């Protein structure tokens, strides 16, 4: 397992569950965890689900990606409540996560990954 993992936060459970299927193909050694939907699996986000996705990620340090603005706020709250080091990116959701996954798998250091994520910042 790589030292850096990825967490994915979406308003929709299916999206949160689906993205790891795209990423695992290029990043089999990257720990991927995700949080989608509200506590009742409605459309929305849940701080608790996000927190548990962060906690159960097997990596020491995690990169976080989200779909739209309201996910970010719950993600930030969760980040404040965990001891894990979480880096949050305002990039295109799927494309940012895909890029990060590819580069983590290839052993690229975080500062270089961030350089490659920079042009994907759209929020």
């Amino acid at each position: 397992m790589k030292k850096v993992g990825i967490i994915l936060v979406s308003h929709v459970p299916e999206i949160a569950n689906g993205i790891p299927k795209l990423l695992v193909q290029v990043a089999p050694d990257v720990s991927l965890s995700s949080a989608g939907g509200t506590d009742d699996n409605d459309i929305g986000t849940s701080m608790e689900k996000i927190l548990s996705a962060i906690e159960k990620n097997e990596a020491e340090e995690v990169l976080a990606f989200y779909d739209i603005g309201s996910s970010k706020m719950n993600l930030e709250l969760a980040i404040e409540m965990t001891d894990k080091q979480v880096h949050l990116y305002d990039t295109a959701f799927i494309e940012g996560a895909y890029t990060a996954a590819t580069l983590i798998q290839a052993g690229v250091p975080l500062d270089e990954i961030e350089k490659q994520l920079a042009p994907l910042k759209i929020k």
Partner: protein
Amino acid sequence: MLTAENTKKWMDSFYRKIEENKDYLSELDTPIGDGDHGNNMMRGMDGVKNSLAQLQDPDLKTVLKAIAMGLISKVGGASGPLYGTAFLEMAKKCSETQKVNELLSVALAGIKKRGGATEGDKTMVDVWSPVAQSNAITPKIIDDAIASTKDMQARKGRASYLGERSIGHLDPGAVSSGYLFTALLETEGTL
């Protein structure tokens, strides 16, 4: 002065207003959002009610924290972490002061930090800010603040995608915040 007791009463009153206006809040959220603000707030206030019901003789800090966690856990939309952060900040501050305007002032700062919005962005901030800054909260201050969001162009939240087309609609989070402060006004001993 907030106390554990009057804060719980405040929440009872806010609960009832949300319950009464749930559909209206969701309707407001339809043209400039995703139409769920009333349901979100109702779910959140049910969460708050349940959390508060479980507390035995709590102090003010415990009450404020339970409100925050109820909202954060249950709302599901942007207003959850925003209202939640507001009450979390009040909880942090309330050992130092129980004065409403001082507590609302840290709450406002929390909302602004959490959502990145400022006055004029057509969000709940446009109600929280004038209310937190007034020496004496009045119905007029609240109503004017709500009404002011109508002509604003949204710069944060879902409504911001609509650009100029967001003008002409009240912001749903501003309206629900209005209920919160009206409930506060109506709760004896808080001010």
